[in-house]
């Protein structure tokens, strides 16, 4: 999302779904995973909207949709690409919107070559490193014009340009551009303009290809194409809804880019009933990227500094945004300085670059999967699990559990005695003999945690809205909140090092770590929220909370822990606790909670008006220019400088917000427009291109390149991959499986399998198979089945159902198996069972390092799995039969020359065990 529009996060809000004329739910099982949010889909349907569900399975969402399109898991880019092709070929795009609000007219560098020219990779690919030099993807800079007072910027080296595109941070922001003087062709006819590049790129995404790759008929495709195009334009809007059905792929970011391109072409961004609604699955998952406990981010999507490129504040800021580009990211220095002031207070001064040096530096991927591999090498002593259970919830649970057994100490803080806390006595590896309780050296501390009603604080829900939950009662027994625990822990650490003169301890000792406490000694969450919001430090307003991030200064006179949250404590009032009843305000309900940024509910809403500032239509009016009052107004907080008229044109040499024209609606983007084509910012391509998943039953029909050439693979004896496509041995794992949630449970079950009322509704791990597959493999409804991959085998009860449909793709009959992943092996929960996540290997998206857990290949057999050590032998025998080696699936670049598919994985004859 960040790469297309400038900000991570859902672009609209749930209630706005009621205004949609068409809703496409793809990569999401909304009715099951967000049942209460689904009321707004039902509301739209009652008002006549068309609801389309594109999903491998017929789910409870499909049951209520007008149309269900069964699709082969892992083929969505082809489906989306074909819609793009339809829109462009049939001139169904919203011409005025596309011309003015996207980069369609920009020319792309002469050096750019598309995947069709290079047999499956874009220009700049290095097969040695598996990475792209993205410089050839850039716009064609306008060298003819002098670069104004930004002298010399046009000559900046290519190296700098490519290093600045340091990657799309998780949920991140618009990527940097050197400047915005690019060649354009307003007629959209130039062969190198983005529009034509796009048109050529998707010309191959035909209905025939969709049939072959997705298993979707041309009639079904056409039906969806007609539905979304006839429900888009001036008078009508279509919403796209996705969730982890899209992000959990090696090309997850590109899935989302696919829908972003469609929504830009159709003119649905920034408009009511439009946008792309990212549905998050956890109470504050949006918040946990906004204020990230993520290795590569600081609060407000500022990157964690990287050694070598971010060694000083100046370098750091320059890498985030060029001073000559457009948009608000040019204020990155201000946001960074305010964060540093919030953390290090008086120790952060202009003289010491506001203690920028106190920040530790990254040197690579330090994500959770890299971390568990470090554990297995005994490189990590201690691990905190805070309301999270990787033993069940992470891909490749066995690797996770074995990693835990390598730790010196483990802290688990949770509501229940989850499997990650008890792996040392009742984990599956105890049964297989891989671990012995008496030999596990890990010290385990289990802290009971406070529940949501036992503490104050904010969750940021799926539409970027912060809502305060009030403490109702004291936590029971030994339970305490994370806030109280970490505050106390910080105090203890500071006491222990109080006398240290070691320079490395300065960041801890200089840290602002003083919050008011209540009678129990617990820190005030509201005081922490106030620090996050920010405050004036000097001058007349000293001590006054910031009311917007525009009040932040880069000189140390203000502080604020997360710039995008500035305003949540405006006027000293906890805005997130506002609860004016919905029925007493407009349908936008701006006085319920507080949404970042600046309480906006629909992002980029300047695009709801035409270039002149008038609503595209009466029916879809949302934000518009009021020429009498000379300001932007409407149903929502305008996502634009309030007083900047539509006719504004920046003076020569302007940069930052001042360089945004009065009709540049994507104010966080480096050029103020939505990106059909991403000239920078992504690591795996400027346009979504289809690649098969890491494990697939069919070969990529588009080029020799089978899977994403930039996916992160881990060639390890504990992480074997199944053969794919036409590789020998692929037939041993002929079926596709996908993992997912059920309404009745929550993720790995830590908040549902301990409750009898939920446990009884879905008591056992099961697999869903079609009647055809059941006949093929002799599976009996409500009997047992064993599902096998190169990693392990798990057993599940069988549900034979017409809801799962075999598809024909790649000339084959494709059977898909559904596996909900809520169960785990342990001794404490009300219900337990094998974990679907144990079947998965670790293969990651290169942009965000998220694992591919929505699709993989497997075999299925009737009956229960072997117990004890026999399980290991059983899986090893499968690997041997399939000829799996460490190379299998780990070759990044597949070339047609010389050899056929058999060479793709190197030596496949060597057995593995």
């Amino acid at each position: 999302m960040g790469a297309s529009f400038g900000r991570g996060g859902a672009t609209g809000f749930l209630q706005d779904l009621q205004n949609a004329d068409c809703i496409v739910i793809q990569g999401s099982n909304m009715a099951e995973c967000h049942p209460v949010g689904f009321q707004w889909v039902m509301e739209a349907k009652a008002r006549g909207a068309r609801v389309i569900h594109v999903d491998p399975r017929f789910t409870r969402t499909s049951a209520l949709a007008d149309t269900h399109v069964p699709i082969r898991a892992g083929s969505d880019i082809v489906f989306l690409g074909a819609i793009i092709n339809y829109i462009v070929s049939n001139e169904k795009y919203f011409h005025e919107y596309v011309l003015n609000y996207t980069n369609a007219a920009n020319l792309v560098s002469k050096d750019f070559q598309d995947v069709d020219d290079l047999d499956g990779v874009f220009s700049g690919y290095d097969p040695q490193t598996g990475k792209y030099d993205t410089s050839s993807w850039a716009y064609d800079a306008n060298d003819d014009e002098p670069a104004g007072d930004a002298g010399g910027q046009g000559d900046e080296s290519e190296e700098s340009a490519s290093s600045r595109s340091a990657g799309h941070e998780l949920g991140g922001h618009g990527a940097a551009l050197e400047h915005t003087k690019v060649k354009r062709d307003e007629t959209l006819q130039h062969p190198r303009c983005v529009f034509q590049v796009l048109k050529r790129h998707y010309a191959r995404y035909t209905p025939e290809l969709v049939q072959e790759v997705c298993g979707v008929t041309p009639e079904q495709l056409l039906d969806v194409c007609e539905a979304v195009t006839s429900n888009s334009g001036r008078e009508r809007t279509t919403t796209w809804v996705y969730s982890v059905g899209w992000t959990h792929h090696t090309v997850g970011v590109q899935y989302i880019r696919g829908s972003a391109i469609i929504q830009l072409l159709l003119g649905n961004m920034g408009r009511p009933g439009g946008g792309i609604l990212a549905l998050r699955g956890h109470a504050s998952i949006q918040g946990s990227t906004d204020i990230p406990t993520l290795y590569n981010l600081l609060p407000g999507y500022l990157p964690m500094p990287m050694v070598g490129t971010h060694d000083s504040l100046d370098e750091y800021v320059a890498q985030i945004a060029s001073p000559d580009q457009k948009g608000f990211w040019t204020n990155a220095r201000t946001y960074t300085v305010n964060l540093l002031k919030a953390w290090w207070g008086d120790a952060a001064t202009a003289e010491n670059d506001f203690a920028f040096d106190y920040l530790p530096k990254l040197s690579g991927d330090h994500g959770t999967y890299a971390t568990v591999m470090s554990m297995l090498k005994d490189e990590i002593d201690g691990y905190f699990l805070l309301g999270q259970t990787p033993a069940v919830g992470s891909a490749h649970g066995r690797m996770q559990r074995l990693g835990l057994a390598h730790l010196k100490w483990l802290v688990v803080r949770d509501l229940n005695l989850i499997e990650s806390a008890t792996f040392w006595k009742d984990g599956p590896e105890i049964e297989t003999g891989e671990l012995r309780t008496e030999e596990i050296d890990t010290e385990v501390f289990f802290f009971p945690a406070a529940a949501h009603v036992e503490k104050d604080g904010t969750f940021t829900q799926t539409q970027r809205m912060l809502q305060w939950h009030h403490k109702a009662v004291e936590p029971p027994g030994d339970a305490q909140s994370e806030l109280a625990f970490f505050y106390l822990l910080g105090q203890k650490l500071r006491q222990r090092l109080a006398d240290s003169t070691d320079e490395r301890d300065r960041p801890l000792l200089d840290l602002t770590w003083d919050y008011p406490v209540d009678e129990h000694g617990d820190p005030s969450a509201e005081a922490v929220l106030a620090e996050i919001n920010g405050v004036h430090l000097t001058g007349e307003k000293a001590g006054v909370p910031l009311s917007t991030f525009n009040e932040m200064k880069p000189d140390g006179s203000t502080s604020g822990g997360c710039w995008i949250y500035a305003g949540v404590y405006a006027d000293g009032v906890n805005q997130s606790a506002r609860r004016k009843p919905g029925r007493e305000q407009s349908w936008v309900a701006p006085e319920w909670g507080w949404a970042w940024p600046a309480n906006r509910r629909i992002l980029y809403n300047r695009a709801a008006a035409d270039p002149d500032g008038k609503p595209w239509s009466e029916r879809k009016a949302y934000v518009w220019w009021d020429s009498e009052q000379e300001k932007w107004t409407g149903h929502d907080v305008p996502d634009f400088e309030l007083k900047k008229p539509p006719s504004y044109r920046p003076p020569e040499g302007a940069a930052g917000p001042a360089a945004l024209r009065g009709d540049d609606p994507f104010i966080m983007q480096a050029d103020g427009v939505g990106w059909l084509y991403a000239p920078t910012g992504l690591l795996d391509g400027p346009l979504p291109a289809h690649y098969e998943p890491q494990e697939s039953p069919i070969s990529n029909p588009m080029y020799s390149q089978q899977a994403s050439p930039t996916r992160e693979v881990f060639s390890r004896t504990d992480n074997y991959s199944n053969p794919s496509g036409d590789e020998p041995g692929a037939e041993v794992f002929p079926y596709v499986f996908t993992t997912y949630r059920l309404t009745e449970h929550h993720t790995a079950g830590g908040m549902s399998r301990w409750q009898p009322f939920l446990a009884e509704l879905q008591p056992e791990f099961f697999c869903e198979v079609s009647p055809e597959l059941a006949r093929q493999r002799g599976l009996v409804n409500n009997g047992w089945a064993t599902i096998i991959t190169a990693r392990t085998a798990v057993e599940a009860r069988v549900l034979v159902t017409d809801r799962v449909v075999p598809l024909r793709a790649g000339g084959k009959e494709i059977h898909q198996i559904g596996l909900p992943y809520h169960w785990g092996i342990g001794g404490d929960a009300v219900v337990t069972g094998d974990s679907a996540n144990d079947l998965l290997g670790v293969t990651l998206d290169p942009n965000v390092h998220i694992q591919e857990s929505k699709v993989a290949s497997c075999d299925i057999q009737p009956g229960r799995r072997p117990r004890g050590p026999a399980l290991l032998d059983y899986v090893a025998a499968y690997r041997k039969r399939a000829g799996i080696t460490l190379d299998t699936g780990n070759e990044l670049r597949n070339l047609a020359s010389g050899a056929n598919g058999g060479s793709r994985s190197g030596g496949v004859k060597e057995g593995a065990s």
Partner: protein
Amino acid sequence: MDIRKTFLEWPVVRQLTGGDPLGRGAAVQSAHTKAITARTKTADRVVRSVCPYCAVGCGQRVFVKDEKVVQIEGDPDSPVSRGRLCPKGSASTQLVTSPGRATTMLYRAPRSTTWQRIGVEEATDMIADRMIESRSRRWQDTDEQGRPLRRTMGMAALGGATLDNEENYLIKKLFTALGAIQIENQARI
């Protein structure tokens, strides 16, 4: 004992003297039934909250009696949820009050086969000691080119996405100040 009153309260008397001669309604309503009232009404206070499961962010009302949660249900004022809850949200009361919930601090020593009880304060002290030691053991001042890293690889964290923003803020702030970088959460998963 007011016999007359007691007598007249007899169902069979009420049956014959009232409008319910067949004893099917008002006449047979027991004193216990008559006294029934909703615990939402007898609660000492109602506290506004937000559902802790998915990210729709449904409003909740938490009813408290004698410092115990007696009921959690939807908040009709919420413009997002309009008072409705899914099965998980509806099970929030059990999430908080279930007898199966863990409320005791536990410690498992290396190679031990059992948990043992331990105080929270003591456990926190033990962790602080271990953090300082692990931080030193795996400290990295610079990389191989001499560029500053100022970090430790000795510890890592993985958080759920049901933590509050304020909690995540303190976690990130403290670990970053310690130089610990392998701090992750559910968003990556």
